[in-house]
């Protein structure tokens, strides 16, 4: 029994004054139901969450008290990915025929301010200014650039593409293109990453309606998008992850590669079969490293790919076609679902100005988060 995504909904990302994160989630659910052509009372189970905007299951107050099973998901940056895999598993197991995956968030301005104790770390680490996610990404790409010959220009090229794609996406936060020279000369935040190369915490909501193959036929869904592979993996010993006072000298396979391999195997396809990809771009360097960690190119080849604009909309592998985290910001609970939402848009051929040419058939999404986990989903139409 295959599982399909039959409905998608999104509340525009960015800043929406006067609207709670939860309300943005409800907005997305209503849109997804309409898109699927089903009623809230048809949904048999739901999985959802936010990081900073409350419990997802309270949304039944607005959507209707139908008695459905609603499980709150709280899995950091992989909250959305975990909601999707849970909805998928529920249908696959025969527990339900229609399931909802929903994520939303609303973060205050500025960087995240996690508490050391929540991450099993002593206070001194935060006291002296090490408890910042931005530092991890800077340290990881700095080392990677030295090892594999990636240049600062490559970091700027990623940001240039993100803001271009964002300008074509009506739901994006950053909707103005930024030229390469402006990006290259912007003030540093954490070297080698400057202010155009980091995404910011933001707001938004995304909902997906999943259904069994039986239900897809029964409802006569016109453009089902099938979930062919889905995996969530956590880190191994020797992984280099965010908030690490120390790391082992010997490196191991990162969680992204573990999740990628598992999803590819499940889907029975390889990197060469992917027509469009959404890869976690918390900052420019992350997109570059994740291109290799997900198996799309060898370490160091990104330099050439970016110079050739191979990841632009008309390139050999369009990456982050909706502008990614850089142009959309990162509402933690909704971010991973935004990637899946965009892949459904692309596979349906509904991308408008940002539609990837050549009628893409297989799409890939990858989200990475603290404290070292990744979720990958492979969709096919």
């Amino acid at each position, binding site marked *: 029994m295959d599982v399909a995504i039959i409905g998608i909904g999104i509340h525009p990302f960015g800043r929406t004054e006067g609207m709670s994160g939860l309300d943005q989630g409800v907005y997305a659910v209503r849109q997804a139901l309409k898109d699927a052509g089903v009623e809230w009372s048809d949904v048999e189970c739901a999985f959802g969450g936010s990081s900073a905007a409350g419990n997802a299951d309270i949304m039944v107050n607005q959507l209707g008290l139908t008695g459905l099973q609603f499980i709150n998901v709280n899995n950091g940056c992989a909250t959305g990915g975990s909601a999707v895999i849970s909805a998928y598993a529920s249908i696959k197991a025969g527990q339900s025929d229609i399931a909802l995956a929903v994520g939303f968030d609303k973060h205050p301005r*500025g*960087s995240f*301010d*996690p*508490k*050391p104790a929540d991450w099993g770390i*002593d*206070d*001194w680490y*935060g*006291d*002296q*200014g*090490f*408890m*910042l996610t931005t*530092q991890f990404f*800077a*340290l*990881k790409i*700095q*080392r990677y650039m*030295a090892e594999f010959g990636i240049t600062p220009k490559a970091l700027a090229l990623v940001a240039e593409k993100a803001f271009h794609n964002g300008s074509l996406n009506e739901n994006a936060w950053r909707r103005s293109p930024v030229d390469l020279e402006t990006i290259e000369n912007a*003030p*540093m*935040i*954490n*070297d*080698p990453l400057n202010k155009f190369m980091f995404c910011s915490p933001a707001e938004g909501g995304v909902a997906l309606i999943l259904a069994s193959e039986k239900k897809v036929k029964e409802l006569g869904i016109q453009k089902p998008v099938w979930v062919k592979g889905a995996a969530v993996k956590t880190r191994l*010993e020797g992984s280099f992850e965010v908030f*690490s*006072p*120390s*790391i*082992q*000298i010997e490196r191991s396979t990162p969680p992204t590669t573990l999740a990628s391999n598992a999803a590819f195997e499940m889907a029975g396809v390889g990197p060469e079969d992917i027509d469009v990809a959404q890869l976690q771009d918390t900052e420019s360097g992350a997109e570059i490293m994740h291109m290799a960690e997900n198996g799309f190119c060898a370490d160091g080849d990104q330099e050439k790919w970016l110079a050739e604009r191979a990841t632009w909309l008309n390139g050999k592998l369009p990456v982050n076609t909706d502008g990614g985290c850089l142009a959309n910001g990162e509402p933690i609970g909704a971010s991973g679902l935004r990637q899946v939402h965009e892949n459904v848009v692309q596979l349906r051929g509904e991308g408008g100005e940002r539609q990837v040419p050549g009628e893409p058939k297989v799409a890939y999404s990858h989200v990475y988060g603290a404290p070292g986990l990744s979720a990958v989903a492979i969709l096919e139409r």
Partner: protein
Amino acid sequence: MFIADNLIEDGHLIGGQHKESGKIVFPLPSGAEQAFYDTVQLSDEGKLWSWSVQRFLPKSPPYMGTETLETFKPYIFGYVELPRQVIVQSRIVGCDESDLKIGMALRLTTTPFDHKEKGVVDTFAYTPA
């Protein structure tokens, strides 16, 4: 006074070595977990593994420095590979970021940190050897 107990002893960084796997971690785990580790002295000398500069004032909490937006000065930090032991995150002092090169030799030192609640304390840092 040092920023925390269990970081430095007799002028050397101390970590924990797992009694079964031999894995070395920093800092020495505290609480119940400490029973699984032996205290181990970490090397005073290491190599720069990666580095960056903190150019904005971190949010407080968790940051406990006393600087304001006006007085904040960027600080260098990075990871230092201690040979055959572990890679530790540390402040890097006594140099300019243009002096830094991955793989360069560094040695342990201490540096003062103006802590909101504890006053001026020392913390560990590495500096070009």
